[in-house]
């Protein structure tokens, strides 16, 4: 690699610094063993800051009853601890919320590796510290070297004591400052003997097990090295951030292969340490092959635990599919990712047979490594049983056993038949076939049963002397022996084939579900549909319970859907969900945050937007651990995509609605100012003339009065239309449907409109046999009124308006035609829109543009339809055609 020539600071280093802006500073007092004086040193520093006037709070200090520590603590402000009840024992823990609320400048938090009592927000104290730092509070804390995750194994090897409380190495990287508290082993032992570390009786025990000079020396060295590494790292960071040139390590990567090796954990630790030292990225990869589908759940759990560990330690995690053999898959991946070093766990001991049957990945890697550097980690994980379990025997079902016996009996019958027909036939093949049939149908256990049954019945019935288990002919012994071996092997192979086929079917089912999921989710156009699709499909796909939480208008997270429906979460789950929402990180069961919750929550977000939180819950924890991270990722991606798409369409709809509302608002304004005022002008003017009737001839007075009445009626119709429109818009208009005689409604409309119809005769063509329609008589009359009124308005005086009806299947078609100028084709749909008026020149009497819109609303509320046509082929005349449902006689009570 060529050296960086650009003198500007490297972006990565600046980014890391920026991340630290606004965050509190972390100082770790690191020691090789308990009792070296970390807490004391931390308090000492705390005092110094306190004396300088810094707002210091001792958030949690473990004095272990040491007198000098307690004395040192004496006058520092102390945060009261929070009492916690755990398994009926009263414990106290650091009060994280109180600390965040108190918000000091500097918090002293002892024992970084501490594990919190169950039920706290975080499982580990270092997570609490991370939150405190994120809140902008500086933290001083203490840590013993054996608690560092990647050193844990080494320390255990040195001292024979394994501590369970570990801190991930990145926490160390968070530290802005590390102070090594060093005490020579002799002095430490002296302090221990003097009872300054543990009470006398415990001290004696401690000396025997842990506090041996050799141990302490080794630990001291380890601690110094760690501190030095860190100092080195800080120096390099500083150099990078300030663009100081130097010999930069090439950007190489380290690859660790996770398979079912018992040394997988060690391999991860080795990889982590190497990566840290080389300041390189590292990738943990799991290679799946057809064979992996044979793995039992325990093995799959182990692999996914290992992957999780790697992820926690900062690795990029990948799963790759092996097309041919595992080794070449690893090597080609390594080449693609610019990897220099490959670390694998030492494989488990394998029998000669399996070694011959299956690929030896490590051997193959070594052989084909080329320029790669291969490291084999060999420290076995104590928790693992080093022997690999065979393909587990399927639990025999009664059906399987019966089938094994039955098919063997059939084989016997076939063999007898064959024996009689072709005496030379190789009868053992018949039994072999039986075994394969059983294996492929019922699995390996019944196949073994069938092999043994076949073996004995073959011997008994067909090997001379017949009807006896003894064998006289030596060659028959060979035949029988070979038969047994061959049938066991073929049985097992057939059974495995079947198992693989089942697994394959499961996988393709999962893929199908995923596909189905994406289709359903993509099809949901309403928010509620989408929510339902999401929760039901997550539940079905993962075989779990599922929940979707989204913020409401006031930004509080609430359950919007669940499968099975759920509307209540307990406090812990609520906290976990809230945490996921706030931080955008997974929380709850199986995670690092609030692991005692029942639900596992993951965020649904893109880089710029967060949508909600998806919760899943299983009955057993194993299922949660086995969750395929790729499947989860695919699911959440699809949900996010769908939510985003819906958000976009909603935004679009909202914009369109806003535009439409704006248009209606201005239309309404102009309508009110024009249509409401014009009649008023006439009325007020005419009435004014009438109050002073001197000199007005009788005819004029009558005409003025008539004008007032007409204009008043027009005003009334307008107000009525506005009211109807409002009622339609609010859904307040609920039609009361009943059987209605169209003729009667026409009659009453005609009666009501007799004044209007004086100049426009209304002719009706209603067949005698017209069946009643399903309608609300009052609303239907209103519709007829509006349409006829409209026809009158737009057709010349004296011209006829015709109303006709006929049945058309289960519908009745009602047509009202006029002989006016007609409506241009392009306007025929739009005349049913609110405030839409066809430009008709000044001679036309202006309508309000509401009447037909109301008709459409009313007709549709009664289950009918309405459209406009031209009366004559040349496009003149307007014909409004309505359909209504014919009243079904069955409904008559």
């Amino acid at each position: 690699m060529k050296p960086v020539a650009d003198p500007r600071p490297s972006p990565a280093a600046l980014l890391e610094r920026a991340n630290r802006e606004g965050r509190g500073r972390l100082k770790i007092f690191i020691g090789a063993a308990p009792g070296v004086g970390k807490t004391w040193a931390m308090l000492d520093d705390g005092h110094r800051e306190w004396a300088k006037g810094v707002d210091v709070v001792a958030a949690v200090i473990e004095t272990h009853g040491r007198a000098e520590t307690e004395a040192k603590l004496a006058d520092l402000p102390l945060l009261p601890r929070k009492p916690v009840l755990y398994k009926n024992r009263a414990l106290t823990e650091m009060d994280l919320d109180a600390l965040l609320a108190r918000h000091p400048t500097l918090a002293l938090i002892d024992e970084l590796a501490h594990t919190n009592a169950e039920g706290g927000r975080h499982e580990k104290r270092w997570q609490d510290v991370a939150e405190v730092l994120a809140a902008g509070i500086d933290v001083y804390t203490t840590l013993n070297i054996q608690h560092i995750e990647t050193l844990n194994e080494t320390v255990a090897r040195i001292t024979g004591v394994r501590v369970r409380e570990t801190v991930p190495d990145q926490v160390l990287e968070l530290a802005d400052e590390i102070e090594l508290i060093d005490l020579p082993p002799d002095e430490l032992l002296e302090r221990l003997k003097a009872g300054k570390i543990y009470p006398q009786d415990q001290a004696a025990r401690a000396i025997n097990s842990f506090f041996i000079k050799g141990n302490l020396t080794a630990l001291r060295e380890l601690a110094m090295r760690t501190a030095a590494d860190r100092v080195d790292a800080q120096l390099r960071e500083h150099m990078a951030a300030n663009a100081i040139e130097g010999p930069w390590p090439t950007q190489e990567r380290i690859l660790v292969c996770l398979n079912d090796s018992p040394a997988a954990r060690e391999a991860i630790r080795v990889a982590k340490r190497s990566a840290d030292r080389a300041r390189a990225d590292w990738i943990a990869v799991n290679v799946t092959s057809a064979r992996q589908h044979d793995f039992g759940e325990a093995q799959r759990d182990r692999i996914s635990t290992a992957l999780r560990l790697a992820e926690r330690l900062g690795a990029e995690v990948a799963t790759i599919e092996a097309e041919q053999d595992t080794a070449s898959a690893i090597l080609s991946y390594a080449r693609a990712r610019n990897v220099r070093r490959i670390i694998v766990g030492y494989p488990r001991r394998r029998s000669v047979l399996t070694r011959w049957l299956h690929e030896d990945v490590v051997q193959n890697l070594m052989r084909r490594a080329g320029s790669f550097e291969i490291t084999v980690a060999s420290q076995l994980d104590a928790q693992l049983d080093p022997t690999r379990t065979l393909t587990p025997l399927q639990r025999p079902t009664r059906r399987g056993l019966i089938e094994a016996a039955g098919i063997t009996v059939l084989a016997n019958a076939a063999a007898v038949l064959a024996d009689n027909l072709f005496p030379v036939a190789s009868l053992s093949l018949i039994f072999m076939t039986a075994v394969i049939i059983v294996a492929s149908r019922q699995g390996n256990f019944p196949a073994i049963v069938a092999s043994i049954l076949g073996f004995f019945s073959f011997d008994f019935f067909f090997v001379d002397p017949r009807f006896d288990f003894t064998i006289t002919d030596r060659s028959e012994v060979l035949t029988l022996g070979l038969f047994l071996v061959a049938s066991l092997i073929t049985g097992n192979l057939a059974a495995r084939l079947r198992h693989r086929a089942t697994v394959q079917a499961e996988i393709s089912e999962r893929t199908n579900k995923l596909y189905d999921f994406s289709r359903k989710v993509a099809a949901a156009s309403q928010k509620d549909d989408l929510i339902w699709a999401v929760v039901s499909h997550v539940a079905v796909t993962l075989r779990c319970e599922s929940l979707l939480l989204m913020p409401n208008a006031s930004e509080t997270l609430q359950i919007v859907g669940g499968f099975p429906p759920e509307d209540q979460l307990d406090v812990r789950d609520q906290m976990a969900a809230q945490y996921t929402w706030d931080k955008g990180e997974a929380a709850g069961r199986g995670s690092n945050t609030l692991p005692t919750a029942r639900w596992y929550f993951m965020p649904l977000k893109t880089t710029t937007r967060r949508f909600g939180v998806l919760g899943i819950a299983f009955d057993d924890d194993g299922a949660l651990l086995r969750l395929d991270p790729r499947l989860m990722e695919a699911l959440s991606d699809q949900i996010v995509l769908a939510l985003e798409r819906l958000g976009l369409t909603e935004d679009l709809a909202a914009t369109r609605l806003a535009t439409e509302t704006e248009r209606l608002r201005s239309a309404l304004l102009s309508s009110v100012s024009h249509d409401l005022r014009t009649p008023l002008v006439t009325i007020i003017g005419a009435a004014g003339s009438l109050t002073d009737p001197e000199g007005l001839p009788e005819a004029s007075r009558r005409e003025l009065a008539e004008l007032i009445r007409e204009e008043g009626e027009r005003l009334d119709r307008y107000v009525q239309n506005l009211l109807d429109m409002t009622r339609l818009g609010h859904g307040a208009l609920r039609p009361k449907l009943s059987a209605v005689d169209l003729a009667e409604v026409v009659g009453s409309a005609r009666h009501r409109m007799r004044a209007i119809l004086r100049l426009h005769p209304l002719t009706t063509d209603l067949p005698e046999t017209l069946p009643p329609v399903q309608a609300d008589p009052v609303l239907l009359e209103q519709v007829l009124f509006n349409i006829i009124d409209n026809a009158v308005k737009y057709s010349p005086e004296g011209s006829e308006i015709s109303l006709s009806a006929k049945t058309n299947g289960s519908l009745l078609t009602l047509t009202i035609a006029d002989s006016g100028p007609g409506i241009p084709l392009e306007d025929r749909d739009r005349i049913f829109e609110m405030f839409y008026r066809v430009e008709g020149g000044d001679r036309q009497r202006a309508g309000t543009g509401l009447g037909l819109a109301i008709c459409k609303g009313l007709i549709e509320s009664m289950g009918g339809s309405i459209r406009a046509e031209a009366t004559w082929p040349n496009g003149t005349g307007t014909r409004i055609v309505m359909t209504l449902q014919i009243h079904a006689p069955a409904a008559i009570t």
Partner: protein
Amino acid sequence: MTAARILVIDDEAPIRRFLRVALESDGHSVLEAATAREGLLAAARETPAMLILDLGLPDADGLSVLRDLRGWSAMPVLILSVRSDEAGKVAALDAGAQDYVVKPFSVKELLARVRSLLRDRNPTEAVPAVIDAGDLRIDAALHHVTQAGTALHLTRREFDMLWMLASNSGRLVTQSMILSTLWGPAHVEDSQYLRVFIRQLRAKLGDDASNPRYIVTEPGVGYRFIAGNDASLGDG
């Protein structure tokens, strides 16, 4: 023309004023009340011949006034209703109002309704044994109907229905009134019967429902007999 004392309960002063002018021009005297309380007091003290009641009053629902009134008085009540309040109109008719006019209404229409409601009050104008309505002659005693001199053959129930409508000429006859009178109170809801019978009756009378000469349908409410009555109602 009968002159009567008419009580108007309406909270709108202009409407009361207009009603007073219109009713007084027809020879009636008018009592006015702006609230339900005043109205009921006036109805009790002054015993008017009929009541014109607005359904929307500031202090109480017009319907509750009607129910209160019906506890102690059988005076005819004409409801002033608005078009969008179909339910209120029907409820008022059920509660004992005789008829309604929809605001806005013409003076002619109002006076015609008032006249037909006041007709009963005059003992000298008791229901006659024979009604002549336009070209119809309906004889109650003989159960006989002729149209322009030609006898019509009506079933008993058709005749009863025609008689009921014609004897209330110009007045609203609600569906429930016809059903409970002719079929009995158990059939008040069976408006489908009524629809069928009205259809048959119209057919025999040669009346076109879409352009009625005799019986007008008041959608969702009832029927009104218009033949030979006041010109403002009969003139189509």
